[in-house]
């Protein structure tokens, strides 16, 4: 196998690991903030404790996020030197700003963690969360804009092989950027919500009747529900964007070969060797409707795109996984939110609660599937229309060795994170901490 293959696998591996921690890193501060705010407003120690415990678990995930993020930052140049040489002249600005945003977040997270007992006015301590939240969202925004640029490059012209008319802001605010950023942010908040809900639901399933877990579950599920709706709406806009700017990606995701109006939406199924779709659920007109908001709009098919530019057809499965999980979680949280209001007993049933336990991991699977869909979907390009993946890759013959080394590293990190997080919370259950608060009179200590 060539270096380019291993470079692709190593990038995929690093990003797949990083995105788990990055999603938690962007999403969880929102929930810490909501809990902390409710705690101050209602003078309720349960919410304050929630903020504190979430923050403690959050640090572990941030730590692994920092190191995997450092890995991907350096690997960009190590594995794709030609690409970075070229793109460095165009997207250095958002890359640079991302570091600033992250720096900002890191500083204030450190301060927040170590100043629980140091401000006379507890609100001052709460305000420290704002830069953490903003920093996280901003770094997601900037880094996603770089990825969006790779999908829809603009803000420059190539004249006799030389770059001219460079506009860093145009490159940053490229056509793919708004939908991509919005989808990344909403799905991160949604996923973080379901993950925290999973933990609370798990305690309830295990027979823990503590009020703390009920409050936690209600809070996270309500917020997650809102962001599930937002994610779906933005996802719809992303589909419309693809149809206009990257029709080959949408067509491959939908196994849509003939350019036609009244195009059906293809769900699930398998593809035969002669490119026939079998065992699929076809919803007539739905694709046309999704793309053009009317039932007859024409959707470009793969047959109208040169074959060497076809993305791998496998992305259909990733697309299906992402969308199915999204819709499933939307229904789950809808039932929960309505059930909570009207006091339905179903939401307290064991089966339903197991569903809630599964929601966090499922949301994370959807995040991974979504990224694999979007990244594989722009093959064979590394920068659509300008540079193929093979042209951007390193010539070093040792990438395979690095792939193995990093695979071992990530395995250690993942196992370590799981072990440490479970041990941390199992050794120090909520009941103990609430007992401590009763004795000392404040969450801070």
């Amino acid at each position, binding site marked *: 196998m060539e270096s380019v293959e291993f470079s692709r696998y190593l990038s995929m591996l690093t990003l797949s690991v990083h995105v788990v921690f990055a999603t938690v890193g962007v999403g969880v501060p929102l929930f810490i903030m909501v809990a902390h705010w409710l705690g101050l407003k209602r003078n309720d120690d349960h919410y304050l404790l929630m903020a504190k415990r979430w923050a*403690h678990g959050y640090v572990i995930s941030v730590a692994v996020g*920092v190191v995997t993020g450092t890995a991907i930052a350096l690997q960009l140049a190590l594995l794709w*030197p030609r690409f970075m040489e070229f793109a460095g002249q165009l997207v*250095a600005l958002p890359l640079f700003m991302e570091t*600033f945003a992250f720096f900002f977040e890191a500083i204030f997270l450190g301060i927040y963690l170590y100043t629980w007992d140091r401000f006379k006015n507890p609100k001052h301590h709460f305000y420290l969360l704002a830069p953490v939240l903003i920093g996280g969202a901003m770094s997601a925004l900037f880094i996603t804009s770089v990825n969006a640029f790779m999908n829809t490059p603009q803000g420059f012209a190539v004249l006799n092989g030389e770059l001219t008319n460079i506009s860093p802001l145009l490159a940053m605010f490229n056509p793919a950027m708004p939908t991509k950023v919005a989808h990344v942010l909403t799905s991160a908040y949604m996923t973080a919500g379901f993950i925290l809900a999973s933990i609370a639901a798990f305690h309830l399933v295990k027979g823990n009747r503590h009020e703390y877990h009920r409050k936690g579950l209600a809070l996270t599920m309500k917020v997650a529900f809102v962001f599930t709706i937002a994610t779906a709406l933005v996802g719809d806009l992303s589909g419309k964007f693809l149809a206009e700017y990257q029709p080959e990606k949408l067509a491959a995701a939908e196994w849509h070969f003939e350019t036609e109006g009244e195009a059906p939406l293809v769900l699930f199924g398998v593809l035969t060797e002669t490119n026939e779709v079998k065992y699929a659920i076809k919803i007539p007109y739905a694709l046309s409707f999704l793309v053009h908001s009317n039932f007859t709009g024409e959707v470009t098919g793969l047959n109208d795109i040169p074959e060497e530019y076809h993305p791998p057809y496998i992305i259909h499965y990733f697309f299906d996984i992402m969308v199915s999980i999204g819709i499933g979680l939307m229904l789950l949280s809808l039932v929960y939110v309505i059930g909570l209001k009207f006091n339905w007993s179903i939401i307290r049933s064991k089966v339903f609660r197991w569903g809630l336990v599964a929601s966090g991991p499922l949301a994370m699977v959807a995040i991974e599937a979504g990224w694999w869909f979007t990244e594989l979907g722009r093959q064979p390009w590394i920068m659509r229309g300008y540079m193929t993946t093979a042209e951007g890759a390193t010539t070093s013959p040792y*990438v395979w060795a690095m792939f193995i080394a990093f695979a071992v590293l990530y395995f250690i990190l993942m196992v370590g994170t799981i072990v440490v997080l479970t041990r941390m919370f199992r050794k120090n259950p909520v009941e103990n901490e609430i007992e401590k608060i009763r004795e000392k009179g404040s969450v801070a200590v």
Partner: protein
Amino acid sequence: MTIEILGISVLWLFLFGYVIVASIDFGAGFFNAQTLLTGKHHIVNTVIQRYLSPVWEITNVFLVFFFIGMVGFFPKTAYYFGTVLLIPISISIILLALRGSYYAFGTYGTKGHKGYTLMYGVTGVLIPASLTTALIVSQGGFIKETAAGTLELDYVALFTSPFAWSIIVLSLVSVLFISASFLAYYSSVAEDKGALKLFRKYTWIWSFPTLITALGIIIEMKWHNQDHFQGMLNLWWVFALSAIAFAVSLWFLKKARYGWSFIFVVLQFALAFYAYGVSRYPYLLYPNLTIYDSFTNETMAISLVVVFILGLMLLIPSLYLVFKLFIMNKPYIKKGV
């Protein structure tokens, strides 16, 4: 001043910032592990934990900052260094990853885990060694072109070069020197007599090897890279100032004025670091790459400088806050964990 020089000066500042904060961090991890083995851990544990916990993640960002800035201002470096340094930098990343995560696991998860502490110490000394490879390679002489026209690192030349090993030794001893000097200051603020005594001793132990290796490297440069050696000779007075700062810092150490002693240690390194940087002008990678033939387009350079200034306006007050809360703050430092 041209914008290229402004760009490289800014990056050099980042790198220097990283060298100082990372040295303190690497050294602290090393001393933490060392005292665990020599049975003196209880003396230094409090001081080190008090310092490291709130700041460890900030350190890493300095490195990414330098690196992203480098690719931003000098995109061609991504090609040259990226192609050549795959293995050494990947090793650094792996060590950094193990170190960062095991620190978090040890501090926030299972407190006082011996394995994590040792891992934190060992990786702390290996990282400077592997990161230094980038600096060594940029001196020239360690890159060969293959038959296919691609670039490759000449590992044999690298591992058999006394010059390369001297730089690695310098990076190790100066890490320990800078760190001990800072921790002596920190424990004096904490009024922790036991820790102070120990770190004072460590500062003395690591100070002279730092100076001797640094001098040795200047002399070795004469055989390794004549141009650079000449550049260093032209700046002999800055190196002399650095040596004076070194003497002053030791004098303050003797007089038990640890804050000033640390300031002069930083000054000593700043002078040497800038003199070294200026003396290699205009090369980024000798002799392949100068700061002029690899500079980014003007629009991007200007926008980077603008963002840099705006970013600093945000960062400096924040860093000042960290400083005030955790480093200059007596009640915080004194209160045991």
